[in-house]
């Protein structure tokens, strides 16, 4: 891509940029002004630069370049097996749990390459929360699930802990449903509630970024709608990256969309534009349902 993308510092979307990129940036700016008057300039929270990924000898991602706008929802779409999860799982370096997986390139978080060996993974994962496809409540009570991360990372008096747990549950729009069963096991909740419990557990840590890997694919439509509303509510305070199978979902809630195909990022831009006026043939085929 262009030289601008090779910069170490995260790109700021200002009107100083020119050329083809500049046009895109103007679209960004326009969009932001439309939605959010005071926020005229938004920087990239995460920038992937020439990112390649390998499962053993097998390459799964090819030269991914992507800017995730701060305080916005970015959707990652694409057919099954195209590398959406793989890409997302680099951001919090969860892939490193497995010995044979390897990432090359750079992922800049606020300008610092988080793939550097010096990165403090514990701190990184406190700043970047992850929600999985299947709800993953720990075998603990509802309360302890939400308190889990707080207890790990902070020392605080019980009263403050209670307050933070309650506020996280409220933010996750779950408090009213579970306020009488805080000491019941988390796994006893319904699937949709479990997923919102996981969201509450994650946002209790006040992360800067939320990574969601198909968070609604295992729950029913009503619960899905709740999670979507939640994501829309949370943006602004959080930068959200959501992998989704559903183009409707991407269209409904995201500001930006990246289309992945066979490990490559085919197209990236404003959701509105991509869905109304895709630039690449493959994107068009995908969103019109001709494959995938």
């Amino acid at each position, binding site marked *: 891509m262009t030289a601008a993308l090779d910069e170490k510092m995260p790109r700021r979307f200002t009107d100083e940029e020119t050329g083809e990129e500049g046009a895109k940036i103007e679209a960004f700016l326009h969009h932001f002004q439309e939605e959010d008057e005071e926020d005229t300039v938004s920087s990239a929270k995460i920038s992937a630069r020439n990112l390649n990924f390998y499962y053993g000898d097998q390459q799964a991602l090819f030269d991914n370049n992507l800017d995730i706008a701060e305080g916005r929802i970015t959707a990652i779409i694409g057919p099954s097996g195209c590398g959406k999860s793989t890409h997302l799982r680099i951001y919090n370096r*969860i892939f490193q*749990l497995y010995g044979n997986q390897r990432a090359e390139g750079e992922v800049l978080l606020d300008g610092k390459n988080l793939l550097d060996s010096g990165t403090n993974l*514990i701190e990184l*994962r406190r700043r970047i929360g*992850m929600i999985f496809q299947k709800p993953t409540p*720990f075998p603990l009570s509802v309360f302890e699930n939400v308190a889990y991360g707080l207890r*790990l990372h902070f020392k605080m008096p019980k009263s403050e802990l209670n307050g933070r747990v309650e506020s996280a549950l409220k933010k996750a729009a779950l408090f009213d449903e579970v306020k009488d069963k805080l000491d019941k*096991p988390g*796994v006893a909740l319904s699937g949709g509630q479990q997923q919102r419990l996981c969201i509450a557990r994650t946002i209790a840590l006040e992360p800067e970024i939320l990574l969601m890997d198909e968070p609604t694919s295992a729950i029913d439509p009503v619960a899905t709608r709740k999670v979507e509303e939640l994501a829309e509510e949370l943006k602004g305070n959080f930068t959200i990256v959501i992998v989704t199978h559903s183009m409707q979902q991407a269209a409904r809630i995201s500001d930006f969309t990246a289309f992945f195909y066979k490990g490559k990022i085919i197209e990236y831009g404003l959701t509105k534009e991509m869905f109304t006026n895709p630039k690449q043939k493959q994107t068009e085929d995908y969103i019109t349902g001709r494959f995938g």
Partner: protein
Amino acid sequence: MEHSATGRQQSWKTSRSMDLLFRGVTAACAAFVLVIMAGIFVSLVWNSLPTIREFGFSFLFSKAWDPVSQKFGALSSIYGTLMSTAIAMLLAVPLSMVIALFLVELAPPKVSAVVGNAIELLAAVPSIIYGMWGLFVFAPFMADHVQPLLSEYLGWLPFFQGPEMGIGMLTAGIILALMILPFISTVMRDVFAMVPDVMKEAGYGMGATTFEVTKDVTIRYGIQGMIGACLLGLGRAIGETMAITFVIGNSSDIFISLFEAGNSIASRLANEFAEAAEPMYLSALMELGLVLFLMTLILQIITQFWLKRVKKKMGGDLL
């Protein structure tokens, strides 16, 4: 269409009669097990009637064991059984857990496979080998090296005083632990391996360390299976005969010190059945067998209740 419909109907019919047959056969097998259990229980009670009549409940609380004057009590054997099992579980359970966690969470896959196979092989060694090895190799080692150390550093505790002979309660417990360790650790390994990766990822994703994920996710997730594994080990330990008989020392006394000799129900039965000629003697041994039978039964029931409670607390089956 019609053809396929009748085909389906027929297969439905046959499968229903097959179902009935299947149910009948399985129920009969299950009933057979119950009948055998009941049969063993009844014949044990029947054969121990002489001593039950003679001593009543005091049989359980007396440590007398004198075939000459026909005075019998089970206390020292019950104590020995419980104590040797307790020592074995105390040593084997934590160690097994650590081994299983190492194999699943920390060891490189190749190491894990090799060590795992070795442990499975150990589980196949007959208990008489443990007994012989215990008597000829391990007991002298205990006497020369372990017991002197224990009495030097922990000798202020009443458990580690007395003769440093090698054989005795402590040695029996350790041999038992070695024997049940492979069973418990292989089952625990399988339990931990079943904990879904995504659950562990969720833990790491919150910024937890390996230790924290192990403690809060893996172990909690596997707790029901772990209890099952312990029960398996306990079942083997409590009735184990050969491994114990060689090294427990066969004394009818009860000592606080674990260095002292003792006996267990199983070891007493193995040692004395051949020489029990008088009806009272034989009856006393039979009643010992009955006590062991009931002890395992009670332990089973307690564990089942415990499992139920854990399950309820966890919100259901996790694995």
